[in-house]
């Protein structure tokens, strides 16, 4: 056996375990779910479960609600994380030191604890409202058991990691790039939009993908502090499966959620491949 062939076989052997794991815990459940989702009440196969998803009023509002929460969370997480990361990268002083020390803390608090913490803080009878009442300053609007509560929880869970990702991308931009832009006469906005943003765009895309997937598939926070209706898809899926025992509808819901994530994954991979091919064409 030639050396090249030996290396090929070794490569295949190395990749096989991860491929098998992927096959068993990702590909197979998706295929089975899809098959399940096509089963109708009379035991045949059709698209009735999918039809139900888009015709039932509650299901439609669940889908819209989930997308609403996901998009708003993504936008807010990115804006806040980018601002924090940029502040830590380009500023100095006490505030920066404290942000650096504190911003990762949410990552180390289990999601159930953090969610109950938010309920304690922002609930109708939470600390914040009690303090406001004591100070005769009125009352907070309804946050818990509302879309606002889920979004706040999403911010809590996603900002630290996103800030860390963007922070490392911003750190990779040398000061001298900014200085040379200033040197030719660029103002702050031009430096941001023409240099910093294009040079961190790829990481931004990675961050969007992570946040989108994380929020759209979230369960704990929406389950504990979301409204009864409409619901996030994860909560709805659980209810359809465990309470209504509609296994096929739950499978359709799961497959639809998977398709939503795949859509974003597709754009992510496509833009990465496009960038690679531009690079290869330039270097080739």
């Amino acid at each position: 056996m030639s050396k090249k062939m030996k290396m090929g076989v070794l490569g295949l052997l190395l990749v096989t375990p991860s491929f098998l794991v992927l096959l068993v815990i990702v590909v197979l459940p998706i295929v089975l779910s899809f098959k399940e989702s096509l089963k109708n009440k009379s035991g045949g196969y059709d698209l009735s479960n999918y039809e139900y998803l888009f015709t039932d009023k509650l299901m439609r509002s669940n889908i819209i609600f989930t997308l609403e929460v996901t998009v708003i969370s993504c936008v807010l997480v990115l804006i806040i994380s980018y601002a924090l990361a940029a502040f830590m990268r380009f500023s100095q002083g006490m505030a920066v030191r404290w942000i650096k020390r504190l911003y990762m803390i949410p990552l180390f608090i289990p999601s159930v604890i953090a969610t109950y913490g938010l309920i304690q803080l922002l609930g109708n009878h939470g600390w914040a409202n009690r303090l406001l009442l004591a100070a005769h300053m009125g009352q907070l609007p309804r946050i818990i058991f509302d879309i606002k509560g889920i979004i706040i929880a999403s911010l809590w869970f996603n900002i630290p990691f996103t800030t860390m990702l963007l922070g490392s991308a911003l750190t990779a931009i040398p000061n001298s790039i900014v200085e040379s832009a200033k040197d030719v006469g660029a103002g702050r906005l031009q430096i941001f939009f023409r240099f910093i943003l294009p040079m961190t765009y790829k990481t931004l895309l990675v961050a969007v993908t992570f946040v989108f997937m994380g929020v759209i598939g979230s369960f704990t926070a929406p389950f504990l502090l979301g409204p009864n209706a409409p619901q996030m898809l994860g909560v709805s899926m659980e209810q359809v499966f465990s309470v209504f025992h509609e296994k096929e509808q739950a499978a359709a819901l799961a497959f639809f959620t998977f398709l939503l994530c795949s859509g974003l994954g597709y754009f992510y991979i496509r833009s990465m491949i496009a960038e690679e091919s531009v690079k290869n064409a330039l270097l080739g």
Partner: protein
Amino acid sequence: MSIQLSIRQLKKRYKTGDGVSDISLDIRKGELITLLGPSGCGKTTVLRSIGGFLDPDAGDILIEGKSVLGSPPEKRPTSMVFQSYNLWPHMTVYDNLAFGLKIRKMSKPAIKQAISEVLELVRLPGMEKKYPGQLSGGQQQRVAVARSLLLKPAVLLLDEPFSALDAKLRHEMREELREIQADSGLTMVFVTHDQEEALSISDRIVVMNKGNIEQIASPQDIYDHPETLFVAQFIGKMNFVKGVADDRIRIGGLSFPNAQAHSGPVSIAIRPEDVILNDAEGQGIPGILKQIMVLGHYAEVSVELGDHGTIRGFQPREAVKSLQPGQKVTVHFAKVLTYSEG
């Protein structure tokens, strides 16, 4: 010639203790002046203060008679060529060059024309569509120089621009920079720690040490008449021996005129090319020839002079043909430089 850039009593201290103290310097229009010194001597601090990237603690910087202190880099009539090229990797050469001109609201055809001309000047015609990653180090640095030239600054600042290039390319770039300077008539402030670079391109050299100016002079004067012991040690190769000064400078059996009226112990500096090698019976300090290294068209010899240590000299290749390591010789000096000790 009018003064283009004036630095007055510039002071800047860092927490580490480094910085500059009381730097004053006038640079004439069209002059290429080099700030030369070892790491931490303050040369980059001066350059970055001129460019507006650092705020000095005290002093003033005037360009064409107007103080620029307090103006941010983008408002100063200066442009900087950085050590690491600093081309923007996500933009083509054209976009790198055009960016500053677009900010200055130049029309598209004028930008295109200016870029084409400047690329001719830096010998990179037709490179507009390339990305920085597709260019060699030398080409990138030429684009960086072109980007600064396009802005027609009153003063062009160059921060060790060739230090990342290999020796051959560095040599070529020096010549090119000198040609560009002659063609454009730009005033340039060049920072380097490479004395050969400074000697080869500068109209005048400012030798700096520990935040102070040691000497300002033409390359020839700096080499021939280093005013301080530091400059003598830093510029070119130099031998140092101990001597005594009274009415004359005395070393071994040799004596030289005491032009600077030193007295007591002195450090005597001798350039290797001023070392004269004689046979054992000749006039001079007796010594033993330790080593002969033929370096192309000349040879470097080292001679042990007893208490005076080892001295190195350059000799014509022909002159060392009959010599053997270990033989007795005498050494004389064509010229000596003296510096008071302490």
